[in-house]
Structure formats: C-alpha cells, structure tokens
C-alpha cells in the first residue's frame, strides 16, 4: 500500500524530531536545548516542504488530503472535528507561549578559555607559552624519584581536591552536586588530555577568579590555589592527575 504523501512528510518530520531526542537526550545524555531543536526543526521542515513540493503534481498530491477534507461534503464530520480542534490547539499554544518563563537564565560557558600569553602567578609574571613542568623531566631521568613525586602529588590531591573532583578524579566528589559548573572530570578525554601542563598550572593557581574575560559567566568555584599551596605542590599534583588517569599532557614537541 502506498503511504499518502502528506503522511510521508509528517513521518519524515516526526522521525527527525524523535531521532534528535533519542540521539542527544537518551544516548548521549546531554539534553538538547529547546532553541537549538527548534532551529533544526525549522530547517528540516523547510527542506521537507521543498522536496515534497518539487513539481506541481507532487504538490497537488501532498495537499490533496487537506483539500478533500475541506471541500468533500462526505467528510463533513471529520471537517467539523478538525475545525474545532485546530483553533483550540492554537489558542492553547498561544496561552502557554504567553506565560512568562521562570526558567533560570541560560549560562553558556567556555570550558577551556584560551590562556593569556602571560599571567601573574606567585607574584611573578609568567610566560605561559614557554612554561613547563619543572618536574616532568625527572620521569625519564629518575623513575623512582618520579614515583615519589607522584605520590606526594597524590597526597596534595587527596587533601585538597577530592572534595569536588572526587577520589576517582571523575569530577564527582562529595561536594560536586552543590556546584555549578560541576567540577571537571579529569578521566574524560576532553579535559586534561587536551591541555598542556602550563595551562593546568595557570588554572589551578589562579582558580575561578583568575578566569579571563571571555570565560563567562565567571562562576567557577575553583579556589585560588596559589593562596593555599606551594608552587611545587601544584606541579606535583599535575603529575598525579596525568599519572592516575593515564593521560599524557599535550606538548609542542608532539605536534
């Protein structure tokens, strides 16, 4: 049996709509913003309309059921039902749309803002482009000493960082639920694996208040760690973050 053209068009649109919902909301677990979905659906609808009205015959076929509903006297009952439902639905939709929104303002956020070329850390002006972890070279030179440094970094982490970033470095510490934005998940391949050690040093030592202008909305709860930790403690904790997760820091050499 041939599916009527109008039903085909409706099915295509429904398929696209639910496809988005299933892929984003269910599979990826990241709820798709309503405005974005509306934009996708607008373009999809326009595209479907263009395809289905490509020539006159197709257009006629597409609108035939609608035309029949309005003009065919034998469909009178259905016409009355549809003509009652459509204005009511439109009125209801208008009513809902006119309600003021009490949803919290959307706060889009740059997760990894571009670092400034220099930053003032521990009272010194530091060139972030040239900055390297002074302890990293020990990894090759003296693996035993390096292990010791990683362990010291672990102690710093567990005393200071795990409350939010979690024992498992998965961003799910005891206090994570009370923070927005939620603490960074270092296990995720999209976080420290993408960054240089100098970047981590900058973010850790200057914290939320050290975020640059473009890192709106400046609500990170990250403390300013240069107020609490010594410089080498921060470098050690960075060693620990990479060691525990198995990620490697990005560096100029490998690119």
């Amino acid at each position, binding site marked *: 049996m041939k599916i009527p053209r109008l039903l085909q068009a409706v099915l295509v649109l429904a398929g696209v709509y639910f496809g988005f919902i299933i892929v984003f909301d269910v599979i990826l677990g990241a709820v798709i913003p309503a405005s974005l979905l509306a934009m996708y659906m607008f373009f999809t609808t326009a595209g479907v309309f263009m395809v289905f009205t490509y020539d006159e015959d197709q257009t006629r076929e597409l609108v035939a059921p609608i035309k029949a509903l309005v003009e065919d006297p034998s469909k009178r009952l259905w016409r009355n039902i549809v003509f009652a439902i459509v204005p009511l639905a439109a009125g209801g939709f208008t009513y809902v749309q006119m309600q003021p929104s009490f949803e919290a303002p959307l706060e889009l956020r740059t997760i990894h803002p571009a670092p400034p070329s220099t930053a003032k850390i521990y009272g010194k002006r530091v060139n972030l482009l040239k900055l390297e972890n002074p302890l990293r070279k020990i990894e090759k030179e003296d693996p035993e000493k390096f292990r010791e440094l990683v362990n010291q970094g672990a102690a710093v982490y567990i005393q200071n960082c795990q*409350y939010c970033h979690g024992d498992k470095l998965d961003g799910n*510490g005891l*206090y994570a639920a009370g923070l927005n934005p939620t603490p960074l998940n270092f296990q995720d391949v999209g976080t420290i694996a993408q960054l240089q050690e100098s970047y981590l040093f900058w973010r850790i030592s200057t914290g939320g208040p050290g975020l640059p202008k473009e890192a709106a*909305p400046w609500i990170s709860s990250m403390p300013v760690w240069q107020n*609490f930790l010594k410089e080498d403690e921060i470098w050690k904790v960075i060693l620990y973050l990479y060691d525990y997760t198995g990620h490697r820091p990005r560096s100029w050499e490998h690119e």
Partner: protein
Amino acid sequence: MMDRGSIRTVLIPVFAASFVVLSFGQAMAKDGDGDKGEAIYAKRCLQCHGEEGDGLGPAAERLNPPPRDFTLGLYKFQSSAFDADLPNDDDLFRMVRDGMPGTAMPGWGDMLSEQDMWDVIAYIKRFAELEGTPEKQIDYGSQVQSSPESVAAGKKLFLADDRCSECHGVEGRGDAIKKLKNDNGERTWPRNLTKPWTYRASNDPKDIFTRISAGIPTTQMPSFADPKSKKKLSIEERWHVANYVASLPKTEKVVRPENTVIKAVRVENELPTSPDDPAWDKASPTTFFMLSQIVGKERFFKAANDTISVRALYNGDKIGIRLEWDDRTKSIPGDAKAESIAEGELLEDAVAVQFPVKIPTGMEKPYFLMGDAAKPVTLWRWSSGTTEEAESAAILDAEGIDQQETRDAAAGFTAKGSYKAGTWRAIMTRPLRTEAADKDLQFEEGRFIPVAFFAWDGSNGEVGTRHAMTTWYWLLLKPSTGAKPIIFAVIVALLIGGVLVWWARSAAARSRSAAS
C-alpha cells in the same frame, strides 16, 4: 554543564539502587588474589586508608567521617549477626562497589572490574588477618511488606521506651540529647533518618532491618536482636521499624538539581511574621545542596549542614524569606543541655542570605563567597542568640570573605527563628526598596536575582569562615501574569477558527457554482 550534571546526579543513585536490589541475598563471594589487590590498593585506596591500612592516610584529618581503620577488622555495615566475629565478604564487596553515600568513599563499580574488587578485598582482609566466614547470620524471617499498619506499628516501637528516639529524635532527625562517640573516641552524630542520601548503606527496608539487627559495630548503634538488650525487638517488630524508618524521608527536602530558582509568590496582604505560620505554604520550597567552606581562608572541611530549603513571599512593600534546615542541636550558648552535647565550645547557630548589591545586567556576578571589591554583596544574617542575649538580625556589607562590615538591622530588616524537633526555621523580611541603594539590593519584580546561602552550626564549632555554603542560585519575584495570555489565546483561536470557516464556505460555494 548543568544538564549533564543533573542527569548524572539523577542516574547515579538509580544505578546504585538497581545494583543494591540485584545484589540482595546473592551468595556471590569470590576468592580474590591479595597480591594483585595490593597494587590496586596502593593506587586507589592508600591515600585515605593509609599504607598500613590504619585509616591514617594523608587525608585522614580532613575527612568526616574518617577513613576506616582496616587493622581492627571491624566494619560498620555487616549483614552477619550482631555476635558474629566478622562481616560477610559480600558486605565488604558492597561497600567497595557502591561506596558510602555522604562520605568521601566513592563506589568503585564503574572503575574496577569485579575481580579487581575481590582482589582488593582479599588484600584489605590481611590487615586484620580476617579469614573464613561468619558463623552466625541475621535471621530475616519473612519480610513484612510496608503498609500503613506496619508503618504505624513501627512508629510506636520507635518511640516506645525512647527506643530509637533516644538518639534519632522523635521525628527521626538525629536531634539526640546524647553525646555519641565511636570506639576510637571520635565524635559521631546519630543519622538524620529523614535524609536518605546520607544513609551509608541504602535506605531500603531490608538494609534498615540489617542495621537494626546487627547494629553498627564500632558505634553506639546497638543490635535490637540481642536477647540481652532491654529494648530487644522480635523479627516482625524489626520489620515494622524498618518500614517506618524507610517512610521518614520527605520529598521536599531532596535536592533537585534542575531547581535553581526560588519563586517568590506575590501576596496581597501582610507577610507572615512567624516562622511557623502556615501562610508560608503558599510558596513552594526550593532545596539546595550545601557544602563546606573549602574555598577561602581559613578553609573548613566538616560542616554539619548539607541542605537548606527556601521559600519566599512578597507584597507591594516587602519581601519575606523562610529558610528551613535540619540541625541536630539547638545551639544556645549558656544552655546547659546544649553545652553538654556540643562538640567543643558551644557557639550560636546562624544563617545568612547573600545578594549582590546590584542586580547584574550581564552574566557577571560577584564572587560567590561574599563578593569582591568590584562587586560587593549584602548579607542578611540571623543568629540564634544565647541565654543572655536574644536572637539577632544584622546586615553585612561584604567585599570578600575578610572584608565585612556589620550594620545593625538597618533599613527595616527583621529576622526571627524557631526550632522544633531537629529543624530550624528562620524568617527574614525587608522592604523591597531602601534609602541606601549603594549598599542594599533594590528588589525588582520579574528579574532573576542571584542568591546564595550560608549556615553555621554552633554545636560543630562553626563560626566565622567555618560554615556551610551554597554557590549562586536565583530568586525571582514572580510577577502576576494578568489576563494577557488568556485574551491573546482567545483572539488567536477566533482568528484561526474564522479563517477555517471562511475557507470551507468559499470551497463549498465554489463547488456549488461548479456544479451549477
């Protein structure tokens, strides 16, 4: 971002719960290889539980509760009988796999394989040379399903002879009048049974039955299956109590991560002047998660309060906020009873609401911990008072955690508290607009106003920078929408209806003329 976080927060307990359900009664203990477990322990466990398994890792000082000392071989959450000499392997497995909600112990089930976890358990057991299986198990009899009758029977037993209420309080909020310690001499507080997310080993009735029957070793939670106990309960009675305890959590206290806005409801008459006035129920509560102040100097790691529920009402002149939070102790310095149960020096309980001085026009807000020099904040503070001095209300002008100035209840600001069965309620009211626009927030209807909260538990040594806190959330003075939406809806419906009718008629006319 928020969406992802909230989904995670919702899903994790669901997964954990399904694990718990699946694991019941399954004898699935496996042999682990302690030598392999040693390497896993060194990487994943040592930082808290210590190289020697004595719970003295580098973080021990800053964790509440402290990490378990494995050398004792005693575990709090065992399903072997109260007089058994060791826990079941499955008990250890559950603790490793699911973690301990409300503590720093995470569930490892998503990071370690089942075999890895058994290997770690084999290694952990070496610290106390635990071997074999316990001889006595809890007799569960046949489970009494929860019903209103069972819950009522459980409540009676809970309260009778002050059996459970002696520590857990008459409404289960852990508002005991006893100073509890564990076997190590560390201070412990009885569980607030109305907060299921703080139950270390789930609030399923079967788990609660297990706790009632086996007690919680190393703590003062006794076994109620012990025939020598004066407060002994039969199996059936323990099921009733378990069903009652499982019924205690109140949903409005549960944090819903997507609820970030306190919607202040407009009322036409005067705002309620008592914290317990039922008029507050006109506004629905929003509950926020509180964390310890670990951001600014001096940091504090062991805040007692973990949630706060907020409602707000306003009229043409004033705004009123009611804060509600569970606190096991009514901390009134000078009060003999309060002094006797406090941990350390007894201080006043207090709570504060923080607003920016100016409603931000962009996304930039003041620093959430008491503002900064560029963007000051105003704090409304209520303190419980002492036996000498009455409760007090104050306004703080702050530009950072160490930059605060106190103004006495200026600008018509009032605050009042009331304590009942383990819950504080504090109300604060202030005129919507004041003279001092450079220091006081001027409220506006329909604007999203950042708001944050702070709480001090005076029986837990909390004062100054030692407190619980939230990050920024929103307060909205919900404007009345008026008749506009309904008028527009009717107009749209009529217009579309008219067009349709006109279309049908003209089509009918066309077909008539075509026919003739």
